[in-house]
């Protein structure tokens, strides 16, 4: 499974190639406000066809609003762009025909059976033989024998499976998945991601929002959004490299007290306790090393240079962007 993303990453690193690639999503300067609250600010992004694009950010950062603008559910206040080559401002309905959108909350009809839900969706999308398409989807979902069960009575993992099955039933070219794995157990999550990679392999573009760092690392490219602004974009390696963070790991007794102490030291911008050790980082290498030098006398502490992980980078990004908006 790991061979495929690396291959795509290699291609995307070549800057000259960008013009020739067909983009499933290509939007510039999207903004959206609700009342006085600006939820998305001048957001631009491009997603190549057949890619899995991870959409990360804290709660309330504008991920859902952006997804809704992409499929024409919301009209942006500013900005323009295309989705599958169609204008998001004027061709919303045509876009929706080829986009599968899976909302955060389970949103199939709880009082319809599995089969009735799938047939309803097939008919709305104008799938030629709705009943056959639904029957086929039931088999591929592994829901045989449960097709008469009400969708509301399924367990969390099966609901999520059914929701994805319903999304891909009309054979969309683009999938927009809004936190699809929230509250799903690890095994179901793994199966879900295997299915996402199969779909991408078949040429479907997938934009998936998530809070899980391990899921971000399964994406070909990621974007990080906070306070409505896109803060970083690229492959996982690019985003980490772009952060210019230097990290150390320190181990010692009472890491919680140590973390509180470290937070007060100038030059240390990032402090995160991890079990028995504390992750310490900063963007200015000399300032960070000077700060660490102050602890040289404390023999109980063991310092080791470390590399930043995705979470360090995001915490750093959100800390810095919060400063900008205060």
């Amino acid at each position, binding site marked *: 499974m790991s061979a495929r993303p690396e291959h795509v990453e290699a291609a995307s690193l070549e800057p000259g190639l960008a013009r020739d690639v067909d983009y499933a999503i290509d939007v510039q300067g999207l903004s959206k406000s609700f009342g006085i609250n600006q939820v998305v600010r001048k957001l631009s992004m491009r997603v190549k066809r057949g890619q899995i694009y991870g959409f990360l950010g804290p709660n309330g950062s504008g991920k859902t609003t952006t997804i*809704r603008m992409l*499929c024409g*559910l*919301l*009209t942006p206040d500013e900005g323009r762009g295309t989705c599958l080559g169609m204008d998001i401002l004027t061709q919303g*309905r*045509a876009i*929706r*025909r080829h*986009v599968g*959108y899976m*909302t955060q*909350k*389970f*949103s*199939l*009809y*709880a009082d319809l059976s599995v089969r009735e839900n799938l047939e309803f*969706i097939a008919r*709305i*999308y*104008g799938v030629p033989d709705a009943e056959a398409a639904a029957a086929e989807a039931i088999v591929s979902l592994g829901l045989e024998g449960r097709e008469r069960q009400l969708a509301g009575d399924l367990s969390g993992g099966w609901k999520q499976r059914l929701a994805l099955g319903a999304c891909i039933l009309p054979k969309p070219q683009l999938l927009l998945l809004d936190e699809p794995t929230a509250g799903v157990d690890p095994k179901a999550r793994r199966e879900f991601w295997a299915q996402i990679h199969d779909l991408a392999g078949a040429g479907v573009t997938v934009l998936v929002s998530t809070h899980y760092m391990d899921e971000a690392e399964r994406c070909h490219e990621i974007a990080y959004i906070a306070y409505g602004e896109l803060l970083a974009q690229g492959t996982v390696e690019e985003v980490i490299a772009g952060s210019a963070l230097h990290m150390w790991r320190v181990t010692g007794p009472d890491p919680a007290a140590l973390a509180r102490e470290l937070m007060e030291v100038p030059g240390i911008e990032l402090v995160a306790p991890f079990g028995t050790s504390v992750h310490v980082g900063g963007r200015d290498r000399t300032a960070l090393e000077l700060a660490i030098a102050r602890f040289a006398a404390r023999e109980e502490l063991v310092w080791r240079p470390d590399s930043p992980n995705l979470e360090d980078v995001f915490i750093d990004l959100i800390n810095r962007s919060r400063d900008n908006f205060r």
Partner: protein
Amino acid sequence: MNGVAGSLRRIGAMIRKEFIQLMRDRVSFAAMVSIPLLQLILFGYAINTTPRHLPTAVLAYDQSSLTRSILAAIENTKYFSITHHPVNEAEAEHLLRSGQVLFVVEIPAGFERAVRRGESPSLLVSADATDPVASTSALAALGRLVETSVRRERFNVDDAPEGSGLEQAPPPFEFRTHPRYNPAAVTQLNIVPGLLGTILTMTMLIFTALSVTREIERGTMETLLAMPIRPAEIMVGKIAPYVMVGAMQAAMILGAAVLLFDVPVVGNLALLTVLTGLFILTNLSIGYTFSTLAQNQLQAVQMTFMYFLPNILLSGFMFPFAGMPTWAQWIAETLPLTHYLRMVRGILLKGATSADLAQNIIGLSVIMLVAMVIAVKRFRQTLD
């Protein structure tokens, strides 16, 4: 001691929380304030069970100072208000059938001469008796009140200086009253067709008021909107099944009205069917509008109830329309039930035709169009 104090503290916290939630739910709060207020105003000011100033048409084939005195005396009873002067019987009949007037007073040709000759001629008063409450007390007032006042004014003062026993003399003229459409004054004949409108209003509003709110509450609306279906298509798809439910209900009530309550079907049943369809659609559009305004299903039900109340009280279902003050009548004209009641009573009891009901058909159509436009416009903004 500690137990009591602790219990009071917990109850206090609970009360505080309930109040915060109550104040935050605007629609519930509005319902709590507006329903008693609405009832007070409507029952206190608008509703009148012995209605006065009822619209009356005068078909005068004889114009004389005597007939003028009689008409003045009729108006002086306060029960009648002469609003129309039709020129022939057909026009008078139309006014009565369409419900524009409740009474037609017909003065025959040569009336004054007949009175002078002592022939004691008759004045014909046709009354729309579909609503016995509205017409009974007015008709009762006619005979004695008018006679006495006319006799005092014209015969005692002008023509009877000799002071003969005119009080005991046979009346110089008499009223022949003709209660039309419901001569036996059976209240069921008025109530049962009215129930058709009331029941349809209630059920149609509730069904649709809940239909969109339910989808929003359960989160399925977002999925639905993300599919390639137009808002108008969603609306038609949601409303159509209830048109059938409404038609079924209407057939049931109508059947019961005829079989169990002996309600006559004087007019054209096909016309009633078409107009009932129009009425059902209007209510469904209004219910749909409510469902786009409400945040949850409870609010949708509350809105429906707040809307249902004036419909019941002002439409003429429970209390005579003609007895209400003008402002209340104007409000009632904007309610679909008012128009539909005139249609259903007019067709079933009076044999009203589409020409008789033209004003109400136009009124109901306008209300439906307005409701539909608002429903579609509101629905578009569901997410934005």
